[in-house]
């Protein structure tokens, strides 16, 4: 059974009388343990798709399921609960909390879940260790490079052991070498610890080691290559 299931998902943005069809009937299945890239040029609907999968927005039509749970029509409160319990997020601009150290940022989701301090720190340090950030755990975000900050963001996403991590253009603010390192780290997490990843990118150079590539154009899936690498 699929972990994520999207059926005929549509989303249209309206600004005044202008309508922009961001997604035009997307069908997609994501299985547990997959490492999937959503690729496509800017404006192809990658971010919209990830936002809908993350219950950060509602589709105009179609159905999205996470396991057995339909998540496309959740209330604001239930959507927040679901995200906290089941999803991990990585954003383009790192978006760490600037007054928290790396280990505190990594443990922030656990704090929101009410996990005890001891367990929180232990799990956050372990996640940082997996990302090669153990030595920098006590640094503040402004003492870290962009690549290091994004690794902390990935640690924050995986520390809560979510069903899936959704990463929206995680390498967009990084140079290509650092971006490639981050993708490699994510892939290692996928292979060694079974973390399911779906990430979006517009940079084809980052796709060389990705198993499955879903290509979006104009809000439609134009190619779904499950054996890309």
């Amino acid at each position, binding site marked *: 059974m699929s972990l994520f299931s999207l059926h005929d998902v549509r989303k249209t943005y309206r600004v005044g009388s202008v309508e922009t069809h961001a997604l035009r009937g997307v069908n997609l299945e994501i299985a547990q343990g997959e490492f999937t890239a959503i690729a496509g040029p800017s404006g192809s609907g990658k971010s919209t798709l990830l936002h809908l999968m993350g219950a950060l927005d509602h589709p105009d039509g179609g159905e999205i399921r996470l396991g057995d749970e339909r998540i496309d029509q959740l209330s604001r409160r239930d959507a927040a609960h679901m995200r906290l319990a089941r999803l991990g997020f990585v954003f383009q601009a790192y978006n760490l909390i600037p007054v928290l150290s790396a280990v505190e940022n990594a*443990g922030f*989701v656990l704090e929101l879940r009410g996990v005890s301090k001891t367990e929180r720190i232990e799990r956050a340090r372990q996640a940082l260790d997996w990302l090669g950030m153990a030595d920098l755990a006590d640094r503040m975000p402004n003492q870290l490079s962009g690549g290091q900050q994004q690794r902390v963001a990935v640690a924050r996403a995986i520390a809560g052991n979510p069903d899936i991590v959704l990463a929206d253009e995680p390498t967009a603010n990084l140079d290509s070498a650092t971006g490639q390192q981050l993708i490699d780290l994510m892939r290692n997490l996928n292979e060694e610890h079974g973390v399911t990843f779906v990430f979006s990118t517009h940079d084809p150079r980052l796709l060389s080691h990705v198993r499955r590539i879903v290509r979006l154009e104009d809000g439609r899936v134009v190619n779904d290559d499950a054996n890309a690498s």
Partner: protein
Amino acid sequence: MQLVISLAWRNVWRHRRRSLVTGGAVGVVVFLSVVYFSFGGAAENSLYQRLTEAAGHVQVLQDGWRDAGTFEQTLITDADAVRSTAEDLAATHFEAPLVVGVLEVPVLLSGIERSRGLALRGQDWPELAQQRSLVGGTLDGRFVSGPGELVLGASLARALDVGIGDDVYAYTPTGRGFGAAIFTLVGTVDLADGTTEGSTAWTLLEDTQILAAPGAVQRFDVHGTTLLHIADDEVSEDLASALGNALPNLEASTWLTLNPGTARLLETLDPLLFAVSIMFFILAGLLVLNTVYLSVMERIKEFGVIHALGAGDRRVLSMIATESVLMCTTGAVLGTVAGLAVVAIYADGLVIPGLVEYYAAFGMNPVFYLSIEPQQLLFAVAFAFVTAVAAALWPAWIASRLEPVEAMRFQA
């Protein structure tokens, strides 16, 4: 939870200067409230002291004295027995009691050529009674210490054209005494209240008794000489009640009952103090609101991320309220400590030179004994807390209702 509080504390100090100004403003308001309440308490104490110094904490009077038609009807004729009872009961209620018998006789007081009609006050004059009667005034010469001696208000002495050492004659058409007496003027008092000074004539109780009513008094003033703060005076009412029971034919009243105007003033003073203090807090609240609002606006993206990670609306709301409460509570604690330090320093008396004459003119003690009630302190701190929460509500509500995607795209 600990991380959330730590996060809130660090966020407070992200804009150090702004938070210092805002927290400082709350601290200043709390400090001012504490000092303001303590000055209000001092004013109440001043009124209390002035009234009780002049006429005691409890008075024993003839029953129905207010409606008495004649001098005779005001007299307590078995004065010695009543004094004994009053002294016994006062000793069980007050730490350092003083019972003063008073007999005021309407007289015509004359020098060589001039005369004035007034009430000649005869009373016991132990040293404590002398001190208490002279608060805010000065004595030229000395107090009465034996029979046939008289102290006059300085302006009255001038009106009678008599000086220290001169004879002063007293005549009274009323009572059962000799009706006339010659006194020697031994001192003059300069009182702040000119009206009182112009009608002040003091002598010994036994002299007025000989003049008009042997063995009688009109009242006993019962003083608790160590009672300086109105808040500590819970015993006057009990003593009045005990005296009323022990002396069924007489009337025992507290200083508050005898001064209904003052009682009304005291009743309105506390609400007035609280109302002004609330205005202080509202002004501080606007500053806190501005600070919290700016803080939220600067962190819209951050709150978008926190929502996206799964924080509920209430959690976000409480995070911002916590920041506001921490900022205001810090200011409130510092303000309270500073305010209490001022109160502690001046609890034993503060004289403000420029105010002495004004206070004395109103018959009040020019020494401020600063004091604050626990409930007033609680009010100041609790209101700082309420201000913090109330000021944070609107910006916190804005942050709690943010749509994560829109918030993360927000450009200030």
